[in-house]
């Protein structure tokens, strides 16, 4: 057995990229079904960060099923043919009946303009509840989660974004096989029990974000900013779609996107790559390749007109100013990140929980410190996979009667200055140093590294992490002036002004 494994070492492709004078070594394996396995051995405690990423997120949805990528992520914890059930066949028969009843309910409730026949609906609802009760004894609650926890799983979670979905667990080094078994099982054999009560859970999750002050406005701002591309809706989805999406939608979604050729598994920690590679072959390799997945079709068309939005509610008065920019990997992305850095990227640092912006960015120095117009002011560049956004955010000094419109003028003044003069050599060098240091820090945390490299692999490949650092190194002041002039124009902008209204 050992000899075979040694042979396998030679079969793993090993590659490293160099950035900031540092090598990032990644062992790569592509299974015959198209699934990619990335391995980054790292000395330290005997644990392994095990993440699985699928190239699917809310941008793969369409009106009618918005939020399904995220609901599906929840459903991935609800069992398989093997897990979460005592008698699969018996349970499946009941589960089909539940779907039939719910189908009748949905057709009455959501298809008919009068909301359906109340008496009939009440009867069906009763039937549904009885079926659910009779299914309960067959269900083993959260078996996957329990197995992971019983075996010392930490960082146990999953998350859905606009572009990707990840499933996370960190295990003791001797138990990685458990992850391979469970993750390959749920990719191939997911079975969506308790679908309807889980939709209720997700609707509660949506209500939670609705109750976060300002979030409803931000959802509208986002929808207005992205008119055509599927970044238009939030990951959580619209409430109507959460209510009306069906089990059939869920199954179709799973079969389309949860295929090995749309997936990357990444391992970071203390392990033997050859042994791990063999294990990956055994578990993930047994899943048949799926159909090719088409990338999204609709990018953002040019805006051609300025957009403005006004809102009121229970959150602090503030300004957002957004511009469309190109996606990751575009030649202008690096110069835009330098602009964001010079103006005050990231936010948050230097002032607790207020998104205050770095104390060395121009916006902080001018708007917050010297003119005392703002409590906080920040800028960030988010290229994303297909369409990007550059965003300014600022909170006015209400005690000095500053209005969001005053901040808007002040930010435009800073932007015009950059169009004309660019930034200083020191600011460019600072941005370069920070991007290099950030790259090195990202290598420090096993979990952070798994997230960055795993997600990057789905889009432009893990090597793009270093490409981006190199691209920033090449940015000149002419690039800065050029991108500022190209993207920071009214016809490409959305200005959102929010005012606190105490009476709501």
């Amino acid at each position: 057995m050992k000899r075979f494994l040694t042979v396998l070492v030679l079969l793993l492709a090993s590659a490293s990229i160099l950035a900031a004078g540092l090598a990032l070594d990644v062992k790569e394996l592509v299974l015959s079904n198209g699934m990619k396995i990335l391995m980054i051995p790292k000395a330290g405690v005997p644990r392994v960060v095990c993440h699985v990423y699928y190239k699917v997120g809310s941008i793969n949805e369409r009106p009618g099923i918005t939020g399904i990528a995220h609901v599906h992520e929840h459903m991935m914890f609800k069992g398989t043919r093997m897990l979460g059930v005592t008698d699969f066949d018996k349970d499946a028969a009941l589960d089909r009946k539940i779907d039939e009843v719910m189908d009748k309910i949905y057709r009455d409730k959501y298809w008919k303009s009068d909301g359906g026949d109340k008496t009939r609906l009440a009867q069906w609802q009763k039937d549904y509840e009885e079926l659910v009760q009779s299914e309960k004894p067959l269900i083993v609650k959260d078996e996957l989660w329990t197995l992971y926890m019983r075996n010392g799983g930490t960082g146990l979670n999953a998350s859905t974004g606009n572009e990707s979905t990840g499933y996370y667990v960190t295990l003791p080094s001797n138990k990685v096989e458990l992850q391979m078994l469970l993750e390959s099982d749920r990719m191939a054999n997911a079975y969506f029990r308790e679908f309807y009560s889980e939709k209720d859970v997700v609707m509660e999750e949506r209500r939670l974000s609705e109750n976060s002050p300002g979030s409803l406005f931000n959802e509208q701002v986002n929808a207005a900013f992205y008119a055509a591309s599927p970044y238009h809706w939030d990951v959580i989805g619209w409430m109507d779609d959460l209510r009306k999406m069906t089990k059939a939608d869920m199954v179709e979604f799973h079969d389309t996107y949860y295929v090995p050729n749309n997936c990357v598994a990444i391992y970071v920690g203390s392990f033997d790559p050859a042994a791990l590679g063999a294990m990956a072959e055994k578990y993930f390799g047994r899943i048949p390749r799926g159909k090719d997945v088409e990338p999204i079709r609709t990018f953002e068309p040019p805006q051609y007109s300025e957009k403005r939005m006004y809102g009121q509610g229970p959150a602090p008065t503030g300004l957002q100013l957004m511009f469309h920019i190109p996606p990751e990997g575009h030649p202008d992305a690096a110069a835009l990140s330098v602009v964001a850095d010079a103006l005050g990227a990231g936010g948050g640092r230097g002032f607790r929980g207020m998104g205050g912006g770095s104390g060395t960015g121009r916006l902080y120095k001018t708007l917050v410190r010297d003119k005392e117009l703002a409590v906080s002011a920040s800028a960030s560049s988010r290229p994303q996979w297909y369409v990007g956004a550059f965003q300014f955010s600022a909170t006015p000094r209400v005690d000095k009667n500053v209005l969001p419109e005053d901040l808007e003028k002040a930010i435009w003044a800073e932007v015009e200055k950059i169009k004309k003069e660019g930034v200083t050599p020191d600011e460019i060098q600072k941005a370069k140093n920070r991007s290099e240091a950030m790259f090195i820090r990202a290598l420090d945390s096993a979990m952070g590294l798994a997230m960055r490299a795993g997600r990057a692999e789905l889009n432009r490949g893990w090597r793009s992490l270093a490409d981006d650092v190199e691209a920033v190194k090449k940015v000149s002041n002419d690039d800065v002036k050029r991108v500022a002039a190209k993207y920071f124009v009214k016809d490409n902008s959305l200005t959102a002004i929010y005012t606190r209204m105490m009476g709501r």
Partner: protein
Amino acid sequence: MKKTLTLFAALSLLVVSFGLAQVEKPSDLKFSPLSYEPPNPQAFRMTFANGLRGYIQEDRGLPLVNISAVVNFGKLAVARDKAGLESILGDTLIKGGTKTREGSAVEERIDFLGGSLDFRVGERTSTLSLSVLSRDLDEGLALFFDVLMHPEFRENAVNLAKRRLTEQLRQANDAPSMVLAREYEKLLYGDHPLTWQATKKTYDAVLPGDLKAVHGRYFFPKNTILTASGDFSKADLKAKINKFAASWPNQSPAPQSWSKTFPAVEPGVHFIQKAINQGYISLGHLGLEDTDPDYYAVQVMNFILGGGSFTSRITTKVRSNEGLSYNQGSRFTYRWGFPGTFAGYVQTKSATVGYAISLILNEFDRIRKEPVSDAEMETAVNFYLESFSDAFQSPQATMATFANLEMTGKPMDYYKTYRQKIKVVTKAMVQEAARKYIHPDRAAVLIVGDWEPCNAGSDKFAGPLDKFGAVRRITLIDPLTGEPAKTR
């Protein structure tokens, strides 16, 4: 390249079928044994000039150095009429500059180097943290110690911080989760330094001289523990640190003490009105200190009750069975020198507030009355044993953990003996812990939500909410003035 890899993959599949047995279900998996011993704090402990202590670990993997200073000063040491001084200190230790450097010059330089310098004040400790590339260690250390030893709290920086923090007060009643957290502590601890809140007046009362006085009184070598990890040699780093520490004036730490008497909580419902579509709920009472011998049994008990996420009873009942909520469970919080809090918590749509509370109270009751199952015990105990090494994944976090043990006076073999203490917890001890630390009859039920629909309830659990005891309405404080807020 890609084609070759596919071929390799096909080959390795052959290897696999010979090499590894096929496993179809988790119970068939056999894991090789793995032993792990936690690092010994003594191996990292160092002393420097002037009695400055530290926990230092070389970690040559990346060209990075992380250094922190943990100082025995926090919010609890601030006088009531200057409540919030800690936030101003937090913002101005760096921004206020040093005797020889403007605050902006310190920030500019650290940023230029791609480093970070951050200062945070907590309840009883403050932490200054530096992260730089190892090639910038000398310059980083000079800035770090200058800020730590010689802050100047220049007036313009202090005034700006005060005005920004005052503006921030306007948001104090915005987020229901923030309101719930703050008011739950006020309910349980009453009028105590733990719950004092800053207002515009108390911020205004803080002068640069107050910040200097606090710095002079608490920031000295014997009141500080360093932590460092990264790309350096211990001997070199020691020599470098000693140069700074030698000129840092010392004192003897003065004992700090606070009242540990808290008012009896009024059981029943405490309601805060907010026009939102869910009720945000915490229900419970004070808990215990983590130095209590019962701590381990309580950990296991709470894991089963509502701390072990999806494996716990509250999550199963409230979320998984009923679909009532996204976030629910129970937690014991811990704080240095005081009993922490115990709470069952949930956020659910207004109509199901009463139902969710009733389900949680049932679980409080059940874990007191019935022994937990063998399977529940096994999952909980194994989780703590098998995930133990996770705490030591990051060298810098490990050093901080050790510094924290020493700062709070916990035994230095805390981690060495931890797993043994979990292992000996029995079902009887779990039930005993539940009976001792969970009291549904004494629980305060705090709800932030919309009164009418919350009180009305739903088919499954009709209102009114006074089924859970007398209802008291809490009027929020206007955060700017500290006076009762006008109705919203």
